[in-house]
């Protein structure tokens, strides 16, 4: 079984030059995702289309775009669902990042911030199970780690997709804003660190006029995050911690 859909895809040269929408009619298998449809545009209609993608299962974070105006990882959005929302399906690059061509954005500044956050993509400070608190029949309570397995690493939930940067209204008004991804990463790195000096340094990075205080608390980042990272709550937690620190210094 197949479905046929019209895609309105944003096309541009680097820097957003000559930006326009072009329409493509694609026929794909009926369980196709929006990313499959984008790939079909490239494979069958227009070989000049550029887009980022790698894992096709929401793990690499490279394919983030706007579908019908909302930030998503198109590899986990059913084309049929997107079509029900709007036809033709509209596909655009993420906002608040420089346009590098068609659906590709320049992620240099984004990864500079993520590197500065020092957050590791794997981590050790999480129990093996439960991984999802709801409805496991209590079985996860019984989990223990046998000999030789006490060295589990866990991948960080944040996939560095930039969706929160695109969704953030503050990011649109202050390009020096560190942004929800970096601020959440700073919070995560600080929670992982046992070194008091490093923890202070990470909190310093989150502080300041382009840091946690710039956030307008719209919670769009948390709402759009495909990985339930909750940057907004992390920003609020770091604000509280900075205030506690100021108070402690004052009464010392």
């Amino acid at each position, binding site marked *: 079984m197949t479905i046929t859909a019209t895609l309105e895809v944003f096309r541009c040269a680097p820097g957003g030059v000559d930006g326009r929408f072009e329409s493509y009619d694609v026929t794909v298998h009926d369980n196709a995702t929006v990313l499959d449809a984008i790939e079909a545009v490239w494979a069958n209609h227009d070989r000049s289309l550029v887009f980022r993608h*790698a*894992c096709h299962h929401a793990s690499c974070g490279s394919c983030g775009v706007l579908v019908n105006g909302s930030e998503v990882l198109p590899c986990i959005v059913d084309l049929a669902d997107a079509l029900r929302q709007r036809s033709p399906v509209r596909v655009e690059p993420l906002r608040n990042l420089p346009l590098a*061509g068609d659906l590709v954005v320049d992620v240099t500044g*984004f990864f500079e911030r993520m590197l500065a956050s020092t957050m590791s993509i794997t981590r050790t400070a999480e129990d093996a199970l439960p991984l999802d608190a709801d409805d496991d029949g209590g079985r996860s309570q019984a989990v223990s780690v046998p000999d030789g397995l006490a*060295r*589990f690493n866990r991948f960080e939930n944040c996939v560095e997709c930039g969706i929160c940067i695109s969704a953030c209204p503050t990011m649109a008004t202050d390009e020096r804003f560190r942004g929800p991804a970096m601020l959440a990463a700073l919070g995560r790195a600080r929670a992982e660190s046992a070194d008091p000096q490093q923890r202070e340094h990470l909190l310093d990075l989150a502080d300041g006029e382009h840091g946690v205080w710039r956030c307008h608390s719209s919670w769009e980042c948390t709402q759009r995050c495909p990985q339930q990272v909750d940057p907004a709550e992390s920003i609020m937690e770091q604000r509280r911690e900075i205030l506690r620190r100021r108070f402690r210094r004052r009464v010392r």
Partner: protein
Amino acid sequence: MSRARVIVIGAGSTGAATAHDLALRGVDVIVVERGEVASGTTGRNHCLLHSGGRYCVNDEEAGIECIDENLTLRRIMPDLLELNDGLFVATDEADRAYMDTFLEACARCHIPARELSRAQALEAEPFLTPDVLAAVQVPDGVFEPFRFCLAFLATARANGAQVRTFTEVTDLATSDGFVSGVEVVDRRTGRSETLGADLVINAGGPWAEHLASMADVDVPVSPTPGVMVTVGRRLANMVINRCNVPSDGDIVVPQRTTSIIGTTSWSVDDPDHIPIPSDHVDRMMTRGRSLIPEVASTPIRGVMAVARPLISKPGVDARDVSRTFECFDHKADGIEGFVTISGGKTTTARAMAEKVSDIVCGKLGSTAECRTSEVPLVSYRRFYL
């Protein structure tokens, strides 16, 4: 004397590791990749850091390659691996009988293996089918293929390599039986140019045959796709394998908060866009459920298919083709300056790179030795800086 220049076509795991190896040996490297890093076969792989357990019985060479590389990767990219081990699970008498063969094969391939009783297996993996009779624990792991490639390429760049993504090879520059470079187009700007080189390496994976045809040579790569289904919940600590000969849907790889069930195997001519057969998805869910019943009530999060670049052997079924790799010096086809590396696994990418780089350096008259098994990689994030 100017440094030798090598162009690597393809920024999947093989091309990325090869660029890193050659850059460390002082070669001037340019990587050209038509899409994003890992946008072909590597990106859509199973994320499994092989212990060699899946191959050791029928393909000892691939099994040994896997465990050797598994241990090496733990040294050079420790922050990119989830070292959660793997479990080979017997659920019926046939599996149980296979387990002895499996344990012997692990011993032959020096893969550490430990037998678990039914009770121990269920204690370690509470979502495992209650039909489990016994299990064997091996040092499998999980990685993320995209960042795996970025780390190799970021390190290559730190050592002077250039990496050009969204740059497609449109032709090979050939003259008098020599490949002297590549013609490329930057797909973002539409600009074409010719890049000269002393040697060109074809690391195009399932596209290797197409690339080689530009120099009128043939490489026996058969694009062999597999379907993988990701469900939206993590249902295991370890990688769960069925303890039997490899077949469809016999492995569940936990990654982050998801579980990836795989895989199937069929052949295609064109690896560019592979429609996913619905019945393959259903089969993955059914087979996955027989290992972990909870799969049945977990929503599907993603479905992917991509072609493996298996080296085809006449009369051999794809499931039985060795997962080891091969390097083709096209001097044998009358073409100088052109080498293809294909087959293999992402887990063995570093070893593949070592082999092809040895051959390439030999051809270029360089005596520099491989250092990739000792040099830790820089942060993958530096690729974009």
